[in-house]
């Protein structure tokens, strides 16, 4: 009986370890994707609803 329970615990540990690794990999993947998107994502600044002089070419040209 004890041996049977031990095997089940071992299997549960294996499953939890597997799930843990999957979650860590998922976090790493989302982080990596974010880094790639942000470093290449030039139009992203345009969506933050904040006026930025460097994003408004007409104004930038009009200034000194």
């Amino acid at each position, binding site marked *: 009986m004890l041996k049977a329970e031990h095997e089940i615990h071992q299997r549960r540990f294996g499953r939890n370890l597997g799930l843990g690794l999957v979650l860590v990999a998922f976090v790493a993947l989302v982080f990596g994707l974010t880094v790639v*998107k942000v470093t290449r994502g030039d139009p992203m600044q345009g969506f933050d609803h904040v006026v930025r002089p460097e994003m408004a070419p007409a104004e930038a040209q009009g200034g000194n």
Partner: protein
Amino acid sequence: MSDIHANGAMSEAQPGEAGFGDFIALLKPRVMSLVVFTALVGLLVAPVPVHPFVAATCILFIALGGGASGALNMWWDADIDRVMRRTKGRPIPAGKVQPGEALGLGLALSGLSVMMLALAANVQAAALLAFTIFFYVVIYSMWLKRSTPQNIVIGGAAGAFPPMIGWVCATGSVGIEAVLMFTLIFMWTPPHFWALALFMNSDYEKAGVPMLTVTHGKRSTRNHILGYTIALVPFALALGVTSIGGPIYMAVAIALNIGFLIGAVAIWRRDEAKAEADGYRLEKKVFAFSLLYLFLHFGALLAEAALRPWGLGGW
């Protein structure tokens, strides 16, 4: 040695006792490998370059979406999987995973894969992946598989979508090339599966799945294999004259299509007595060749794309 309780055999899975590998098996890893390969080719041959990390993420979630539909298929088909020799070792009929667990995993991974593909690539690709999962699970597994001998024909569309999704990940829209890659797999699926059904007939019969061999007999199945193979050829060759084709693809496609046609004609000319006498040797050979057929067509497309930077690929 065994995970059976000391007080007796355990025929039904208990909640929370499946191993990690059992959940992986629910995702049909072998089918996933074909999804990964064709989706990767679809993505790489597209004219828009994709960052390698983004490309890898796209392929991962297209594969995961395919895996999720596999889990949902196993949940729905657990009753017939128990009957068929080929499938009775699957996690649910083997009593390792509960049907509810498979359903939960399938639904969760479907949502996750579609959402992540939308974030990694674009909404169009994600919508196509969602439709593919819906098509495979609802249209094929729940509806067509048990109701019509044409199940394989229409259900084959689910397996044909991955290269198109890969293409849409890169370009954001569906082009003629993506449609022809889809059609190549779509038209290839019926002769491929019917060749298998010719020598696996007894299993489908036992499970009550209306495979063409069961409902219309093997003579009719042989006719169908030839008919669909002839219909497949123009689509396979047409891909060669699009922007992703080229002389390498064309040479490979001509050779493979001649080979497949010869095999289909040979299957068509055989009668059951001859086939049974040699243990369906020819049918097994054509089935194996059909796998190579698809792999080499997509491999040739990949070769064209790989050689393009050196001015060698394409027309």
